[in-house]
């Protein structure tokens, strides 16, 4: 069983990213905070007696379910449009942004931005591009790369197949690359 200190450390380590994940999805600060708070409560109450190693995956499953519940309860017209493409028709889309992506390993404004202003601008553009992704692509990308889950864990958290995770991640990455390239940011 995870000790109080282990659970506390885990929540402290994950809470900011969880908030950002929720915010990218629901685009409302109060709603995002409520989602994270409910998820932390649920983890602690229902799964607080589980081993510490199980907490990351359990928490992500709870968090993603909470975000989806929020969609169901209060989706706007715009959200309904994006969620339809993401939840139902995404795997059928044959578009492959990889063909338009050209990575340049020599230039990396992410690694060494010249000014604080450039850093802030880069962050804003990246977050805007993330928010525009279809929800399932964004979810897969953040779980796989930001939370560091492996493909099987990401699939378990999302409730889909590993193949879908790979597809979502690949499309998300390429869509982000294209969107950022259009803004003059080349990785």
């Amino acid at each position, binding site marked *: 069983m995870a000790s109080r200190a282990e659970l506390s450390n885990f929540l402290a380590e994950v809470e900011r990213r969880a908030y950002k994940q929720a915010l990218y999805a629901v685009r409302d600060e109060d709603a995002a905070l409520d989602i994270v708070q409910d998820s*932390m409560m649920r983890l602690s109450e229902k799964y607080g007696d589980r081993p510490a190693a199980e907490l990351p995956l359990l928490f992500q499953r709870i968090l993603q379910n909470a975000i989806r519940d929020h969609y169901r309860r209060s989706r706007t017209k715009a959200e309904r449009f994006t969620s339809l493409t993401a939840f139902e028709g995404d795997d059928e889309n044959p578009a492959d942004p990889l063909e338009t992506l050209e990575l340049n390993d020599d230039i990396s404004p992410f690694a060494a931005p010249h000014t604080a202003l450039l850093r802030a601008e880069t962050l804003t553009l990246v977050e805007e591009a993330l928010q525009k992704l279809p929800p399932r692509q964004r979810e897969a990308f953040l779980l796989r790369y930001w939370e560091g889950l492996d493909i099987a864990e990401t699939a378990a958290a999302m409730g889909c197949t590993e193949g879908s995770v790979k597809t979502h991640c690949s499309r998300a990455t390429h869509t982000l690359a294209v969107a950022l390239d259009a803004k003059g940011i080349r990785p």
Partner: protein
Amino acid sequence: MSREEQFARQICRVLDRGAAQLERGVAERLRAARERALQRQPVLVPGAVQIGAGGTALLGGDEKKHPLRTTLAILVLLFGVGLSYYWNGFSRASENEAIDSALLADVLPPNAYLDKGFQAWLEKDSSAGQ
């Protein structure tokens, strides 16, 4: 690491910066939410095993890990039940023994109490005396 993964990692480094720069109010609300959540963590009493959502039973912890302890607890319980049954029987025998002793020590033979004629004579004699 593939180029796709490299790009994703770079994106995540930018996102890490954003997460580290949360407004003070948001960070404080997250900290408060964490504290409230920690209050909800189930507390496991040493030597007790949790049952369902709220109760505990003092049966010696996880029976899968401690089968000997569980067996010992059951044996102690059975021994207690047997001892109680034996003690009740012993008490009843002692009471019967006391009644028998009183009957045997009396001036009347025990069979006199079973004789209906003797009972009738006793009643008649006591009413005549009054």
